[in-house]
């Protein structure tokens, strides 16, 4: 029966691989079209500064452009617009990214730091104006890849999430006349699915890595925080998968409905328990009802937040809190696995 489940998981992985492959092609195409463009022009800057603070047309109109090569081989494009008091320097490191500095005289923009994946945008005040610094291949926290992969893994977990219900729907005679005890069969089934989910996680990371590497040199950082993100992510996916198994272990037909509403319901419960809904009695009742449900909802514990440095500034990293969340998820996973197996042992053909 683990073999059957593994075949199912493998089929799912095949489809996942195709979807990820198509996504990869799309991402690379989009990157090439919008974010890179011609390496020496400013056509990408406008997208980088989508806040509208820096306007490429405004910069180029009436500016003089000079090209030079730095001692280390970097191609530098310098654009000076004396009339508007703007100076732009674009250092093109080729595969290793671009570094753009835009100095605007007497513009007092607000201090800002925005990062999207490997691209960072910073505005800082300097004497006489402000400088916007754009880097297209900043070090990227591996945790971002892990978080996206966890999301995909949750989807795969949902698709694979009702193995017992599928057995119950007309195939119990095979499972129940096997020389292996039902408990072992059940655990083997869940293990096969989880291996498939883990494989999907890895495939996603690989796809994101390839998408990055197709355009820019790999520039990932990995530290203890990232390990925590991975660990919590897997614990969360395991708890989620186990929950779905437990919810559908006694069903025969309608398991698709349960899988379908699992996300909206779980998300709603997590939100309602945390949100401040006001003092109205109805709101209190909803909060009071949602809170215990949120304790058994894996989504409640799966929050990835920004990490902060000691002085409170964002450290540009993704972090999780493991202290309560990890044990809670592991306990939930254990409880749900047990519930699933106990139910499945009682099913009649």
């Amino acid at each position, binding site marked *: 029966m683990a073999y059957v489940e593994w*075949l*199912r998981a493998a089929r799912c992985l095949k489809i996942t691989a195709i979807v990820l492959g198509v996504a990869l092609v799309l991402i690379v195409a989009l990157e090439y079209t919008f974010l890179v463009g011609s390496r020496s022009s400013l056509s990408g800057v406008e997208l980088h500064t989508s806040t509208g603070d820096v306007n490429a047309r405004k910069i180029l109109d009436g500016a003089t452009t000079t090209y030079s090569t730095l001692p280390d081989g970097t191609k530098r494009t310098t654009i000076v617009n004396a009339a508007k008091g703007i100076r732009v320097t674009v250092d093109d490191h080729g595969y290793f990214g671009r570094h753009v500095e835009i100095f605007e005289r007497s513009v007092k923009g607000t201090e800002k730091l925005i990062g999207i994946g490997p691209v960072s945008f910073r505005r800082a005040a300097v004497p006489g104006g402000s400088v916007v610094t754009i880097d297209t291949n900043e070090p990227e926290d591996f945790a971002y890849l892990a978080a996206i992969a966890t999301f995909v893994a949750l989807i795969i977990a949902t698709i694979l999430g009702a193995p017992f219900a599928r057995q119950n729907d*007309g195939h*119990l005679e*095979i499972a*129940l*006349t096997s*020389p*292996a005890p039902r408990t072992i069969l059940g655990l083997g089934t869940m293990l096969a699915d989880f291996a498939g989910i883990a494989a999907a996680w890895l495939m996603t990371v690989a796809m994101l890595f390839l998408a990055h590497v197709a355009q820019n040199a790999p520039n990932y950082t990995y530290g203890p925080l990232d390990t925590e993100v991975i660990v919590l992510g897997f614990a969360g996916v395991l708890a989620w998968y186990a929950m779905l198994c437990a919810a559908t272990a006694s069903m025969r037909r309608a398991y698709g409905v349960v899988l379908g509403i699992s996300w909206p319901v779980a998300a709603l419960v997590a939100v309602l328990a945390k949100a401040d809904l006001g003092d109205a009695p109805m709101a209190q009742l909803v909060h009071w009802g949602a809170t215990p449900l949120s304790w058994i909802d894996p989504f409640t514990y799966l929050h990835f937040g920004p990490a902060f440095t000691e002085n409170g500034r964002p450290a540009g990293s993704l972090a999780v809190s493991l202290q309560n969340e990890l044990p809670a998820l592991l306990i939930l996973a254990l409880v749900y696995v047990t519930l699933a197996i106990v139910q499945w042992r009682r099913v009649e053909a």
Partner: protein
Amino acid sequence: MSSIKISNLRKTYGQFAAVDGFSLEIPAGSVFGLLGPNGAGKTTVFKCMLGLARTTSGVVLFDGKPLVPETFERIAYVPERSVLYEWMTVAEHVEMNRRAFKAFDPARALELLAQFNVEPAKRSRALSKGMRTAVMVALAFARNAPILVLDEPTSGLDPINQRHVLSLIINEAARGNSVLFSSHQIGQVERAAEHIAVMDRGRLVLEGLVDDLKSDRKIVEGIFPNVTYTLNGIANDPRVLRADRTERIVRLLVRDDADNVATMLSNAGATGVRVVDLNLEDIFLFAVSPADATADVIAKGSS
């Protein structure tokens, strides 16, 4: 030691007793046919026996021991309806069996599939009902199991393949394995089984060796010259299992000694008295059907 011993099996669904005190013993190395009308409870017996449904009460022993998961190494089962995974190929089902059972012989499975004209590369959903039965049969017989439990193993099969399944059953019997199978095809049961049991409304109504049942049971038939006659208590004779009369014709279902009963009937004034052999279908129909609607059954105690 019997291969299978069922004692007082009872399975109720709420108020309804699908199986009501059913007992049966399958001797080792025998072929046992289970007959019964639709809804008699045959499939329920199989399911309870194999732990697929929880029994309400009763004991089932295999080679003298209760059923545990390991016992399934020695039992091969063909269910009544297709349990194949629609999205898997036949070859994948073979592989699944190979991994699940130690004594499974994949080469034999492929050989049997070829005999039934099933292509291993086909997905189950592309197979007709009969082919699905053929696949389940092939997988079961490739198990080399000493006990085979087959629930309607010929359903949906064309006559050639039906005969083929019978040959497989007979082959297993020749190898000394035990086969318990249910079928609506009484001719098949007559050929392959040496023991039969008849089930009706959850109960066992008849059991015995096919040959003995056919030699023992006969119909004694006679015609009386007019409608008023007495049978002088022949109907109460212990050898007479049942007596039906339609106007002037009397039919007695007799166990043993049919000739003597025939003489008694002649002496009572009947003419054209004859003894008629019964085949298994007749025996079965008598066991499960109420008396002929147009006849008055002569109640025991009146003549």
